[in-house]
């Protein structure tokens, strides 16, 4: 099997703070990580490879030069080869433009790596939270998609069996190749890199792809200019005015007062 995993380097949203003076995000000093959900996608690919060792896992990331660090981490965990898609012309892309550029790059990478049977993505990135880039890549490529996957049950010769989260339970879905799957949090923890793989990843060559390498790309569909959606403004969500603290001598007294308050406001 030939698997491509798309990954994004994101700021660790656990570490993001709001500057109380300017009411803006403080991103300085915030560590960059591999998007959590992309890690689950990589783990799913690694598990297929555990069963079928001749599987190849290629990772692709679009981002600035620093995103190389995220790709090296993927190499340390499970990937065999990494590509960084980077160009100023790609900056400011919304999900439609991003997915267009990625779909063009996937075709380019396939010239070297062969056609991918599966393209795995995280369900969403933890910074943008749109969950749109995966399905949009599938649309650009004309592939079927399975979203909210928990794990791959079987990568059979004729179809991929995926366990996915549905609204009122779980589903097992079968899909032929090539296909695109987006992953959410599985019931198991993804593996850690070994020391040996970490060392190798440090020295690995990361192939760079720029706009000039993509012969068929229409740059009018890339970057800020090629993005139909525009950010008009951003703001920090207003904090609720502090609510009422309920105090009392005993828990029973507190509970009684809380009940009165909720009942008085017709909440219960």
């Amino acid at each position, binding site marked *: 099997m030939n698997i491509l995993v798309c990954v994004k380097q994101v*700021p660790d*949203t656990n570490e*993001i703070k*709001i500057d109380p003076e300017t009411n803006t*995000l403080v991103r300085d000093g915030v560590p960059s990580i591999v998007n959590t959900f992309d890690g689950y996608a990589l783990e799913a690919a690694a598990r297929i490879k555990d069963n079928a060792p001749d599987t190849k896992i290629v990772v692709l990331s679009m981002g600035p030069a620093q995103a190389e660090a995220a790709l090296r981490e993927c190499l340390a965990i499970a990937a065999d080869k990494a590509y960084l898609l980077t160009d100023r012309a790609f900056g400011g892309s*919304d999900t*439609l433009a991003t*997915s267009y550029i990625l779909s063009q790059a996937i075709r380019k990478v396939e010239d070297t790596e062969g056609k991918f049977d599966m393209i795995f993505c995280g369900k969403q990135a*933890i*910074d*943008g*939270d*749109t*969950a*749109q880039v*995966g*399905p*949009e890549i599938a*649309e650009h490529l004309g592939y*079927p*998609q399975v*979203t*909210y996957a928990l794990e791959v049950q079987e990568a059979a010769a004729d*179809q991929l069996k995926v366990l996915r*989260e*549905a*609204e*009122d*339970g*779980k*589903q*097992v*879905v*079968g*899909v032929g190749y090539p296909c695109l799957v987006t992953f959410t*949090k599985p019931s198991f923890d993804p593996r850690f890199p070994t020391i040996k793989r970490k060392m190798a990843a440090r020295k690995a060559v990361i192939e760079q792809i720029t706009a000039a390498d993509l012969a068929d790309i229409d740059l009018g569909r890339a970057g800020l200019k090629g993005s*139909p*959606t525009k950010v*008009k*403004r*951003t*703001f*920090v969500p207003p*904090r*609720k005015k502090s*609510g*009422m*603290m*309920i105090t009392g001598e*005993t*828990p*029973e007294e*507190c509970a*009684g007062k*809380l*009940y009165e*308050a*909720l009942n008085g406001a017709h*909440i*219960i």
Partner: protein
Amino acid sequence: MEAKTKDLWVFVETKEDGSAKNVGIELLSPGRTIADKQGGALVALVVGCGVDQAVEEAATHGADKVVVVDSEEFKEYSTDAYAAALTTLIEKYGPASVLIGATPNGRDLGPRVSCRLNTGLTADCTGLDVDDETGCVCWTRPAFGGNLMAVIMCPDHRPQMGTVRPGVFKKPAASGQKAEIVHEDFHFPAEDIRTKLLENIQEAADELVDLEGADIIVSGGRGVGGPEGFKVLQELCDALGATLGCSRAAVDAGWISHSHQVGQTGKTVGPKLYIACGISGAIQHLAGMSSSDYIVAINKDADAPIFGVADYGIVGNLFDVVPALTAEIKKRKA
């Protein structure tokens, strides 16, 4: 594509029994406001199999027109068939704007449709408005795990599309007016559906957790201390008719299943009342529950961030306060 009209479309997702999912009817509220400001009609698009009930709900809750696709191949949701139906009808009628509920299916479908139409889609919106200057829809959505809100516009592409979070808008009241109903004879060859549902694993009734539809949620975090601790919360749930939720910390510790999890990697909820017990209030958790109407926080740590979003707070041990509250409710109800 070019918009042929100033109309606003709401995609009304249907349930297996042919009724409408709540969010589709909810979206008729902001849909009406936007359609009026843009000078267009409010159109509901109902897709499914045996969906008379959903059509009736949409027709009596403020839609001017209901466009219906009712056919066997839409009985269960599939990306391929639904994306084809939406794209074809949007191209045929040319609405200016399209709203889709940000349910799992809505978020699977939306990007397929917007991408095929080569237009913009704004994800998981919590606020909708119309820009006075341009007349474009202003889509407000959270990003960075809820740390930042962004207002997005789609100035030059049509239709303007967005998925909208369930529970944010209230259903409009049923009106005496009845919408025009248009049946579209649209079919999608079943053999062209490239995903096959092999098995449906319904959660057992006692494991079925409907957090999104809950009026009251009692939720526990690290402070609950272990699986036994959730029994105390379950008793409060039983007294209130509430649904049991939890934070990621409790799932990671293995105390409760992921299906109860509220937050960025769990469910996004908007109940009337959210009672957070022993939850510190990490931003990822707040992202999933801060649109609740009322929030109560019970926590030992007076500095816990959860108190910053709470309407009512009690600093104390949840194992003292929660049973006392359960007893109080039982006493009052008796």
